[in-house]
């Protein structure tokens, strides 16, 4: 019963002081956590949520180095194509985007962009752009594109937390979130500005795996549907979805073999496979591959196997008699294996089931690409990984990975079997190709998180129980209890406790070194935009080379709108996106013969090259030259690949013609064909008069470290149109044929 006192106005002197005192104590209790009197569970929840928030922000801001140092721009080569398509999508709408035929690349063939790209990244960025615009934030689509990858990296940390919670416990989830937020293996492909498929695809990959493991653990159709939708997102985002559609059936197979077949597995896999397959076939680029390509047959095989298992279980239940069932089992198994083998054999032999494509076959047989498909072998990210790359990208995770595997094997369950399989298969593929370290990173982070979390948990329980025993021991010893049995733990107890404290400090030291290493790697190695180069000047000041964009904007502003530019395929996407001109070949590399034609033109004498350029309607030729600045990724260093790819299709181009005793030289002792081919002439035109370094003769190539052989170059069919300020990009105009009188 509340009694309301009516107080006289005069006696208000006491009230303010008491109310101010109570106000002060309220403030103090609000500020200090202890007197908030939170239950332990709520305190734990608060700690977890705050850690996750901090990790979310950390994952985002650690990827912003290049935006802060240079500007907010798109990096590298492939992202420029993604940017151009996203721009098209936001300007013209989804229908035009889905049915887009592009005549500005691969002249004169054109490219069906709508049917040959993975739309997930573009649609995601477009949706974020439209959402922000709807909320009246006037952002430019480029800003959204630049920051898409860091945003999705933050989301990946959340998924990693839930995944770790599913596999082990919340502690492992938190550690996994922190590890993956700063792991260089992931940062390398998801910095701000790296607007590439992998930025979104790794999020989709981890999401699909998490939802599938959740489906297997709960046996619920809703989670199976969730994993199918996650798989659909992955298929729309990246060609690496083939990893998912092979790992999940392999995992199901392992579970079946180890006797872990259950109804939950049946529900999860079937719903995911059927719905996932249907959804995946909606992407035009994937098409009917799920029923026709050899890479997807494992999933179908396991699907039929699951039906077989279920059928056998049902028959066993019906029969009730063990002997009859075993006899029936033998008949059924032999029939099924026979039918399956015949079907697979007929399908493969008749060619209906296509064999594994070169891209993925070279993962199983790493020597295949070098002998048969030079264009796959030439990409630098497809080379096998060196140990230093592993150490660089993973640091302490490299030895925490086996430790985590040990813990997983100690506590085997459906979920830990999955993460072990994911880890082992992805590490194998990471060893074959440098680019695939990215796919291995989530697995390595999760397994290492299990090791870290389990170890630290054991150590802290060691600390806590020992102090409890010491308390009870001292009270009992004081009351004169059994002294001898208590004396033994008392003697070894301080030693173990000190050991635990020392190990905890060691773990803390390791994790802090990891954080320092990751930040250093991000800052030094993975934050360069590749399109803008930086170097140290003579006085230690930073010099920026913005030659690429200078050249592309020159093209955009000084050439006719229908001009066609021939360059090596590396620069195609950038030329179409920034220069807005038609190119002959670009990074999509879908037509090897067309690329070989360009390679042949670059490696022929000027007259033959002129014939080829006239046949392709080329107006301008663009070469990248690093002799003045010492830039080593220029066309002269890539020239041998042009020769190999050209020679792969046109046998007139023979690689030994350009080498001297197997050695690749550009100085006086170089092969005569090398000294007079188009690439050499275009790179070194007028270079013989230039003094590049103090004390060296004119025409000293700083990238190769030699004085060039042919200094007096005369061009007959081309004329120099533009050379950038540091001579990195050189553009030549193809002259029309002479008038004949």
């Amino acid at each position, binding site marked *: 019963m509340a009694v309301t006192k009516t107080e006289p106005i005069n006696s208000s002197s006491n009230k303010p002081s008491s109310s101010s005192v109570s106000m002060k104590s309220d403030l103090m209790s609000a500020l200090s956590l202890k007197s908030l009197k939170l239950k332990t569970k709520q305190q734990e929840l608060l700690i977890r949520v705050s850690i996750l928030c901090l990790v979310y922000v950390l994952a985002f801001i650690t990827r912003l180095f290049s935006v802060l140092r240079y500007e907010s721009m798109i990096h590298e080569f492939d992202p420029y194509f993604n940017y151009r398509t996203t721009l098209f999508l936001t300007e013209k709408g989804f229908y035009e985007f889905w049915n887009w035929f592009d005549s500005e690349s691969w002249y004169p063939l054109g490219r069906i962009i709508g049917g040959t790209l993975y739309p997930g990244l573009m649609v995601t960025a477009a949706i974020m752009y439209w959402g922000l615009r709807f909320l009246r934030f006037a952002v430019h689509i480029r800003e959204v594109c630049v920051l898409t990858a860091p945003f999705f990296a933050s989301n990946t940390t959340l998924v990693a937390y839930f995944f770790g919670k599913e596999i082990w416990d919340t502690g492992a989830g938190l550690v996994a979130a922190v590890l993956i937020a700063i792991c260089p293996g992931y940062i390398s492909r998801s910095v701000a500005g790296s607007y590439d498929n992998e930025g979104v695809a790794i999020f989709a990959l981890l999401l699909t795996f998490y939802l599938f493991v959740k489906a297997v653990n709960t*046996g*619920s*159709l*809703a989670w*199976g*549907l969730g994993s*199918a*939708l996650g798989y659909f997102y992955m298929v729309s985002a990246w060609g690496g979805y083939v990893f998912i559609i092979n790992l999940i059936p392999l995992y199901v197979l392992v579970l079946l073999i180890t006797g872990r077949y*259950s*109804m*939950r597995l*049946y*529900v999860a896999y*079937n*719903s995911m496979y*059927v*719905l996932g*397959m*249907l*959804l995946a*076939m*909606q992407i035009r680029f994937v098409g*009917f591959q799920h*029923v026709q390509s050899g890479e997807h047959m494992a999933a179908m095989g396991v699907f039929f196997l699951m039906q077989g298992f*279920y059928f056998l279980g049902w028959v066993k239940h019906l029969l009730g008699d063990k002997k009859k069932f075993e006899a029936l089992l033998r008949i059924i198994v032999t029939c099924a294996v026979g039918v399956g083998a015949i079907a697979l054999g007929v399908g493969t032999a008749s060619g209906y089931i296509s064999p594994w494509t070169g891209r993925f076959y070279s993962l199983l047989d790493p020597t295949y690409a070098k002998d048969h498909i030079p264009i796959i072998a030439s990409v630098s990210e497809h080379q096998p990984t060196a140990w230093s790359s592993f150490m660089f990208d993973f640091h302490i995770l490299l030895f925490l990975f086996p430790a985590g595997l040990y813990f997983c094997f100690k506590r085997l369950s459906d979920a830990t079997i999955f993460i072990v399989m994911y880890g082992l298969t992805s590490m194998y593929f990471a060893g074959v190709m440098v680019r695939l370290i990215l796919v291995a990173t989530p697995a390595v982070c999760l397994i290492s998180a299990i090791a870290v979390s389990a170890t630290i948990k054991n150590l802290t329980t060691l600390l806590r129980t020992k102090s409890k025993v010491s308390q009870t021991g001292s009270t009992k010893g004081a009351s004169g209890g059994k002294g001898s049995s208590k004396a033994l733990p008392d003697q070894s107890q301080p030693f173990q406790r000190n050991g635990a404290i020392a190990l905890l400090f060691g773990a803390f030291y390791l994790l802090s070194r990891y954080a320092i290493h990751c930040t250093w790697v991000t800052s030094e190695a993975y934050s360069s935009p590749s399109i803008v180069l930086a170097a140290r000047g003579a006085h230690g000041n930073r010099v920026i080379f913005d030659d690429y964009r200078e050249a592309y904007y020159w093209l955009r502003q000084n050439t006719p709108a229908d001009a066609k530019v021939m360059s090596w395929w590396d620069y195609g996407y950038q030329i179409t996106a920034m220069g807005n001109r038609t190119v002959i070949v670009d990074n999509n590399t879908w037509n090897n013969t067309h690329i070989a034609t360009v390679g042949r033109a670059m490696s022929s004498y000027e007259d033959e090259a002129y014939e080829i350029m006239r046949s392709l309607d080329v107006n301008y030729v663009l070469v990248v030259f690093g002799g003045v600045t010492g830039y080593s990724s220029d066309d002269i260093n890539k020239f041998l690949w042009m020769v190999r790819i050209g020679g792969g299709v046109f046998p007139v181009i023979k690689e030994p013609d350009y080498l001297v005793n197997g050695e690749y030289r550009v100085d006086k002792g170089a092969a005569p064909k090398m000294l007079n081919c188009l690439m050499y002439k275009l790179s070194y035109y007028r270079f013989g008069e230039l003094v590049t370094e103090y004390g060296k003769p004119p025409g000293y190539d700083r990238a190769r470290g030699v004085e060039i052989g042919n200094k007096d170059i005369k061009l007959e069919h081309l004329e120099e149109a533009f050379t950038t300020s540091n001579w990195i990009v050189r553009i030549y105009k193809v002259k029309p044929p002479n008038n004949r009188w």
Partner: protein
Amino acid sequence: MAVVGSFPFNSFLSGVLSCVGTAVLAVCLRIQVNKENKEFKDLAPERAFADFVLCNLVLHLVIMNFLG
């Protein structure tokens, strides 16, 4: 009713997969609702049915898009 061939392959596939999909989803529902299955004893049949309806919704939406 004979299958006249697989010419518009997407339509053929959507027909086949709609049969397979509904069969699979029905089997999953029956597994989850059956009281003899000890694995699903704490799953309410209403929840199982709701999942079934949701999955069928998505399945038929995709089939209709794929039919062409």
